[in-house]
């Protein structure tokens, strides 16, 4: 009986639906959620748990369709702010919905992959930061597809010389996403992790709370320089995005 149970469990865990969507974006166990959209983005959802990546280090669970249905209008509203031309430039075509997204056992809100033109979103990510998280991850796609524009050394030089970023985004404990009352060059604690996360945080606030940022930069020269840096580059990519 135990062997039978083990067999069923192994089959369940390792079940991979080798289908047409897997063939296209190399993520198993997906189904179409919404295909036709004005900006040509295609929404897919996990019908079963999946593991992908190097040593299967990315894992995510299947979506509860009622949960997704309730969150989809907000997601769509935010993603509709990007036109098809811009999405083509940043190589984003597929949004994959799943729950409890982990990368190397660290819970994350989204994982962008411009090579597969895919952004995986955890629909259970903290409600408080959810909208901002989407734009944050989209920034990474912008940066990864226009890497020549985003000079991280130049961006880092806006900081005080005494400040140092961490080695990587997950090798520090600077993870808080709340907006600082007194910014001092950084919008959140997570901004202090690495330059690309700092940029992504700025972009996400510009997309969701532009007025607050415009107010903050009046009294924060470092932040002002950083915001202008991001705005200037984005204008080169697409004049209408901000």
């Amino acid at each position, binding site marked *: 009986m135990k062997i039978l149970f083990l067999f069923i469990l192994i089959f369940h865990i390792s*079940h*991979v*639906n*080798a*289908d*047409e*969507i*897997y*063939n*296209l974006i*190399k993520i198993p166990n997906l189904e*179409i959620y919404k*295909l036709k959209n004005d900006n040509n983005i*295609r929404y897919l959802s996990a019908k079963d748990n999946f593991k992908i990546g190097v040593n299967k280090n990315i894992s995510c669970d299947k979506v509860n369709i009622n949960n997704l249905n309730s969150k989809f209008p907000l997601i769509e509203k935010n993603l509709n702010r990007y036109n098809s031309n811009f999405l083509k430039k940043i190589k984003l075509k597929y949004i994959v919905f799943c729950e409890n997204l982990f990368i190397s056992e660290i819970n994350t809100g989204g994982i962008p992959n411009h*090579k*597969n033109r895919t952004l995986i979103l955890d629909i259970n990510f903290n409600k408080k930061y959810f909208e901002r998280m989407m734009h944050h991850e989209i920034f990474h796609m912008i940066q990864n597809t226009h890497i020549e524009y985003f000079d991280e050394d130049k961006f880092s030089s806006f900081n005080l010389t005494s400040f140092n970023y961490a080695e990587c985004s997950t090798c520090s404990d600077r993870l808080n996403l709340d907006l600082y009352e007194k910014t001092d060059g950084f919008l959140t604690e997570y901004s202090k992790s690495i330059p690309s996360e700092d940029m992504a945080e700025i972009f996400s606030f510009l997309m969701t709370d532009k007025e607050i940022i415009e107010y903050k930069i009046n009294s924060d020269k470092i932040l002002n320089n950083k915001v202008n840096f991001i705005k200037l580059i984005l204008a080169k990519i697409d004049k209408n995005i901000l």
Partner: protein
Amino acid sequence: MIKTIKASKSEKILFIFLICLSIFAFTSFFLLKNKCLFVEKNNLNKLNFNDPDNIAVMNVECGNVIIELYPDISPKAVERFKILIEQKMYDGSAFYKVSENTFVQAGDIEYGNINNLDYSKIGSGKSGMGLLKSELSNDFKFTEGSVGFARATEFNTEDSEFFITLKEIPIYQGEYTPIGKVVYGLDILTKIKTGNKVFYVLRPDYIKTFRMFNSN
């Protein structure tokens, strides 16, 4: 002295039943093993086409699959496809990637020929003719029997591999270069050996010959 024992009536019936059962089992085994038994063969001599120059005939284990090519939609891809057919480079090409009732894929010239299968490299082979630019069409729908050029994750990496859809796959619209459509013999493709839940097929079925209709 050996005494002859006469079989009872019930024993005779049982004996006849066993013989019938074994005959039935024997014939069934051979009939069921023949996956092509109920597949309609397409006799080329009885078929007529409006544009025979753009008709290709792929012969596989169960018969002929007739494909109409669409040079108006993707001229470069169709041109490449015709060259590969005319040079007989698809002969022996394995259907190494098959998703049951979804699609079949073949055409790896370098590592996917049945006489020289390299399982470790299959799917990465080249034709030696260089990569093609994707010719995508937002209007072409990948319905049942559509033929498309396969590619790597990136666009503009089409070479020789192609796939045929066995059902409508709306998500492929605008994603793959269309080559044509199966006009006869789609049921033949459903008989191609699958990998059972995995893409890659061990000891795969293969293309016997692939010719342009006019060269037959």
